[in-house]
């Protein structure tokens, strides 16, 4: 069986398991939708009181938010295995069994779980994105659709990279490092606003260390046909999501190093 077919089997099993409790699955999805949509409530209230911020309106912020949130929602479908890798695989010694199977550990971890509740977050992200696009009267062209897909792909790569990095650290700490939530969930939070709103040190952190800005701020500027108020050249804006893929590649180097030094915690 090839890898994709195997992944399909994994996910089909995972979804069947979740649908054993359909009411719970639906409520979790609705909860995910509501918990994330309220972010926009705060943004709306701020615009209602203050009117605009540095020339940005509610529609602009909604597009920024929708793009980064959609990237994270898609990543979250298939990275659960990496997310809880420390506590569920290293600490328990379950990773031994993963290594014994004649398939790559990466594939098995990707196939660990497919969380249906994430449809709630994805629905929220796409709703916010397209409502925002309508508010700013964004004219969709084939180029823009491709740019949007490329941007979200870069975002998925970046968040997947963060998850893989988090899992790699678990080889040394044997626990899942909750601190990484700052970069994943916190990254979505930070990426929903234009970087020009932030202080310089925070901006640099989001461009050069954890390139959230490269998969949200820059390409969305191109999507909105806005020049960068901070002065980045025009060619860079649609190119920036490539940084997400670079980040993912670097994370896999750490992952390999981690697997190479793995010693079982089992007794």
């Amino acid at each position, binding site marked *: 069986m090839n890898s994709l077919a195997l992944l399909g089997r994994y996910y089909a099993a995972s979804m069947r398991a979740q649908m054993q409790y359909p*009411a*719970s699955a639906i*409520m*979790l999805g*609705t*909860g*995910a939708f*509501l*918990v994330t*949509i*309220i*972010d926009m*409530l*705060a943004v709306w*209230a*701020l615009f*209602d*009181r*203050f*009117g*605009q*911020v*540095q020339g940005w309106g509610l529609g602009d912020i909604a597009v920024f938010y929708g793009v980064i949130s959609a990237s994270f929602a898609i990543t979250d479908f298939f990275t659960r295995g990496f997310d809880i890798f420390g506590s569920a695989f290293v600490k328990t010694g379950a990773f031994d069994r993963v290594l014994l199977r004649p398939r790559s550990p990466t594939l098995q971890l990707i196939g660990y779980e497919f969380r249906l509740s994430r449809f709630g977050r994805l629905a929220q992200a796409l709703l916010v994105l397209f409502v925002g696009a309508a508010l700013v009267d964004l004219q969709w062209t084939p180029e823009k659709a491709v740019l949007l897909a490329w941007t979200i792909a870069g975002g998925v790569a970046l968040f997947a990279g963060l998850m893989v990095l988090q899992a790699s650290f678990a080889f040394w700490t044997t*626990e899942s*490092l*909750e*601190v990484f*939530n*700052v970069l994943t*969930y*916190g990254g979505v*939070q*930070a990426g929903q*606003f234009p970087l020009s*709103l*932030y*202080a310089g040190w*925070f901006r640099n952190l989001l461009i050069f260390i954890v390139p959230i800005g490269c998969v949200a701020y820059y390409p969305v500027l191109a999507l909105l046909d806005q020049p960068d108020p901070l002065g980045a050249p025009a060619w860079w804006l649609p190119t920036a999501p490539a940084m997400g893929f670079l980040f993912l590649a670097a994370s896999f180097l750490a992952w390999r190093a981690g697997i190479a030094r793995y010693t079982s915690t089992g007794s």
Partner: protein
Amino acid sequence: MDAARPYVAAFASRFLLMLQYCAAAVAGFATQCWWGAIKVMIYAAFYAAAPGAADASPMSLAQAITYVWMAQALLALTPWGADPDIAQAVRTGSVAYDRLRPVDTYWLWYVRSGAWMVSRAAPRAALMLLAAGLALPLLGLSDWAWGPPTDLTAAAFFAVSLLLAVALSSAMLMLVNLVVAATLTDRGAVTLYNPLVIVLSGNLLPLALYPDWAQTALLMQPFAGMLDIPLRLYVGQLSGAWAWAGLGLQVFWTLVLILVGRAALTRVMTRLDVQGG
């Protein structure tokens, strides 16, 4: 005093146990710093963008910044979801032991839940006070820091109000616990309740910054007393007669939720199937 002893003991033992979870506290603290920093910078940008609206705002930027840090510091004091121990007790059937103890089940769970929240909040609040209240001013960033209370009166009102907030949140948490006890799952219904708490407690955005037409309703609802009222008293946004009204609302909702909770407990317990063998 003897009547209170088992409850004091239950509170103390849970508090000490929870203090062991240091790593989780550090992770939580990092998250709260990140969230707080983002919010502070975003609010500053909005206030700077519209000076007219900023002057007309019921809350100044300095007040909003202090509010943000304190809201992050006291995050764990808000009743997010059921006390995991009680959820587990219901699932495993050890709830039967709790029912057999010669104490009132409502108050036993009430103080345990309160201790659970306070023990999670205390270390994080202390860390946040050090970071946002002490380190930021020392770094010369006083404009971005957790400022002192407006005056002694505000500080006194805040202290009383914080205690009432714990009482109110514990009463709310008991209702969540009972929903979990009745439905046997801490997922589902609770995930629908979470967004409500985030918005209405002021955790998402200080309640004073929502549109003016919504202000009265936002202050009257029970969740305001769990975070927003104490913080508004601290920054001096509620003072004079309004300060007393704030405390009054907290007492009122605490009593209402306790009465509802006790009635619900009786109902749930008469129908409860004890799990396990």
